[in-house]
């Protein structure tokens, strides 16, 4: 029981915390104003796309673009990059309300309609898959809560619940701007157009470090607080999709750090994780930053390639979880006096397995959605590869446990399925079905050994196996891409074109009109033409019917993996040590013994049941 005195003291602390947070927000507002100014001048000086859109003779007559600005840039002839599939043109004039239905539309109208449709399909696809990824929060909540004890169930659920909004606000404040503020300036393929519409051209402020004649992208600088300078449908769509990805990263550590993490420390963590670590690493890989540039600058394949986030999302979350769990220390009684790990069984395997299924379902948004384009038919291959790897991952973990211990631990089967899903996240678009099955099998095996290693050797207590599932298998995922990618997808990825003809390979970088002319000549049908543009190819590409073996791609993947480990784990370690000074990171010992539900949450999760707490080991 606490005395009244300490209660008052705590309230004071809370008030001062809220005050500090408000101050912080106000300060950031100031920063964002300045940045917004930068952005608008950059737009004026720069992009042809925007100019073309605003100078168009007639505004597009579409319901979402009548009022400027949102959606005004959502479709024009630049988006019209593939032939019209329709055979009868009579029905296409529907936007001309007063004219009869059979009036033939002008070519301009058709182009505008088709372009708008393409962008709309992409926006709908990206939003719907984003909604699926949002539902993964429910999956994480169930898996993590099921693997913890009943006396902490409300606490674990509450962390999983609050991280959704805390991370979202952090991402809105500055995470999105840091990650994607320079999206439009990133290295891209020749002829690339933003799939969600030309409005993405507004994200064109990338801050970098110039070494020699190369500017290495470090952080974006447009879109703080989604301010008016980025008020556009395409950008809001991108924000939603990337926000739910960030939330996935954010919720991974709540599992590894469950049952002993003080809730107040967790709340400030929620803002931090949405604002900085994921955003920086994400900028380097997806926002056009230095890891994406490795192909152009260092000749390493297509640069660090991560299709849907084995490194950006999962390994990042796993590394934060590793540092967090290490700083927190193990749960009371987890390791006996002899240093041997004692099991602390979870309280509900139904939650765990249901949660795993929800996650596997959400992954159909996670991976196929990462095309940001429903018009990219590769989504079918991505979806099939995703489910194949989940199956082989679960099978591998199940068999491993059978062979080692005689029984297939259900919690480990779930870890195995998630391991397969995490690993296939980076390579899902680039590998054959055999590659996907193999990646899942390795991940399912790796996760079992990783759980034993982290608990037995590192002595880090991870109640749900999050470090192994997301950290270890995330690393395996990006590395496997560098091994198994078979060159059938991703031509020109990160601005690197690898042209192949009769075993000879030529690299063309998308760095100006000269290289575009050269590219057109080589891929054309003229005397010097006939070269094939090759997709992302791994070190063992030929084994999977690819055109060649490219070890440099594997090199790029290693750079990305190492960077994720050093930067994210290091940054997180510093953060947790620092935040421990603001609010103690570890729950009070007595509260932890009693279960955190009542002392920290003020609510029992299962008030009508008598909890025996038989899973808790003796403390000491």
């Amino acid at each position, binding site marked *: 029981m606490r005395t009244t005195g300490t209660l008052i003291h705590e309230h004071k602390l809370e008030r001062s915390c809220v005050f500090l947070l408000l101050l912080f927000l106000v300060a950031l507002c100031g920063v964002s104003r300045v940045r917004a100014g930068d952005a608008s001048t950059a737009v004026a000086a720069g992009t042809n796309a925007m100019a073309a859109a605003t100078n168009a003779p007639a505004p597009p007559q579409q319901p979402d673009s009548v009022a400027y600005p949102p959606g005004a840039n959502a479709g024009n002839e630049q988006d019209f990059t593939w032939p019209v599939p329709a055979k009868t043109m009579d029905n296409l004039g529907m936007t001309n309300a007063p004219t009869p239905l059979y009036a033939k539309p002008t070519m301009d109208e058709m182009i505008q309609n088709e372009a708008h449709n393409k962008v709309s399909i992409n926006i709908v696809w990206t939003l719907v898959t984003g909604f699926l990824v949002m539902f993964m929060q429910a999956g994480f909540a169930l898996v993590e809560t099921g693997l913890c004890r009943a006396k902490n169930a409300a606490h674990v659920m509450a962390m999983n619940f609050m991280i959704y909004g805390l991370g979202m606000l952090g991402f809105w404040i500055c995470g999105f701007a840091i990650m994607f503020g320079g999206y439009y300036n990133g290295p891209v393929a020749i002829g690339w157009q933003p799939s969600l519409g030309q409005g993405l051209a507004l994200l064109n402020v990338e801050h970098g470090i110039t070494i020699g004649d190369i500017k290495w992208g470090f952080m974006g600088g447009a879109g703080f607080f989604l301010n008016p300078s980025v008020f556009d449908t395409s950008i809001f769509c991108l924000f939603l999709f990337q926000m739910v990805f960030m939330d996935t990263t954010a919720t991974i550590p709540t599992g590894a750090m469950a049952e002993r993490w003080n809730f107040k420390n967790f709340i400030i963590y929620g803002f931090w994780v949405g604002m900085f670590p994921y955003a920086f690493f994400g900028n380097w890989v997806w926002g056009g930053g230095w890891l994406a540039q490795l192909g152009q600058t260092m000749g390493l394949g297509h640069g660090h390639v991560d299709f849907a986030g084995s490194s950006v999302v999962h390994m990042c979350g796993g590394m934060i979880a590793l540092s967090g769990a290490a700083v927190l220390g193990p749960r009371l009684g987890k390791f006996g006096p002899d240093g*041997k*790990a*004692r*099991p602390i*069984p979870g309280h509900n395997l139904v939650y765990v397995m249901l949660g795993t299924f929800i996650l596997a379902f959400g992954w159909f948004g996670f991976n196929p959605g990462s095309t940001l384009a429903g018009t990219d038919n590769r989504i079918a291959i991505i979806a099939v590869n995703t489910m194949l790897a989940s199956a082989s991952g679960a099978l591998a973990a199940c068999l491993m*446990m059978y062979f*080692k*211990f*005689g*029984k297939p*631990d259900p*919690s*480990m089967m779930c870890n195995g399925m998630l391991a397969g899903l995490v690993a296939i996240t980076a390579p899902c678009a680039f590998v054959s079905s055999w590659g996907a099955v193999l990646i899942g099998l390795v991940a399912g095996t790796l996760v*079992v050994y990783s*759980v*034993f290693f982290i*608990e*037995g050797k590192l002595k880090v207590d991870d109640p749900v*196996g999050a470090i192994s599932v997301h950290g270890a298998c995330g690393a395996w995922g990006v590395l496997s891409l560098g091994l198994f990618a078979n060159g059938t997808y991703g031509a020109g990825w990160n601005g690197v074109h690898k042209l192949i003809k009769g075993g000879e390979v030529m690299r063309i970088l998308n760095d100006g009109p000269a290289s575009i002319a050269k590219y057109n000549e080589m891929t054309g049908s003229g005397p010097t033409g006939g070269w094939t543009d090759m997709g992302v190819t791994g070190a063992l590409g030929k084994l999977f019917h690819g055109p060649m073996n490219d070890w440099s791609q594997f090199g790029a993947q290693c750079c990305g993996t190492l960077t994720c480990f050093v930067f994210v784990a290091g940054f997180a370690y510093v953060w947790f040590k620092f935040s421990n000074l603001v609010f103690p990171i570890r729950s009070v010992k007595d509260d932890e013994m009693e279960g955190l539900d009542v002392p920290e949450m003020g609510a029992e999760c299962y008030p009508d049941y008598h909890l*025996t707490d*038989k899973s808790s080991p003796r403390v000491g």
Partner: protein
Amino acid sequence: MKKIEAIIKPFKVEEVKDALAEIGLEGMTVTEVKGFGRQKGHTEIYRGSEYTVDFLPKIKLEIVLPDTRVDAAVKAIIGAAKTGKIGDGKIFLFDVHEAIRIRTEESGEKAI
């Protein structure tokens, strides 16, 4: 009057109840309990670490009945609950010196 307290395997509770009903016993109280005896529990593996399940789930069944019916009841319980393997449980007998039906305030054997 005697009270029978039988600790049995949970999946035998229906059979025991039917066997007691067959010899005309009309009331009983059951409780879900956990415990262990001479053989202790058993060991399992959770995520690679071995642990002992000490407390095994059992059903505790309580019946109060006239002295004359005790032998038949004990025989019925043994007949229904026996599997011949370890963990079948135990039966304890106690003397009961009074029983009262709350609704009618009857007492003694009439109250059972």
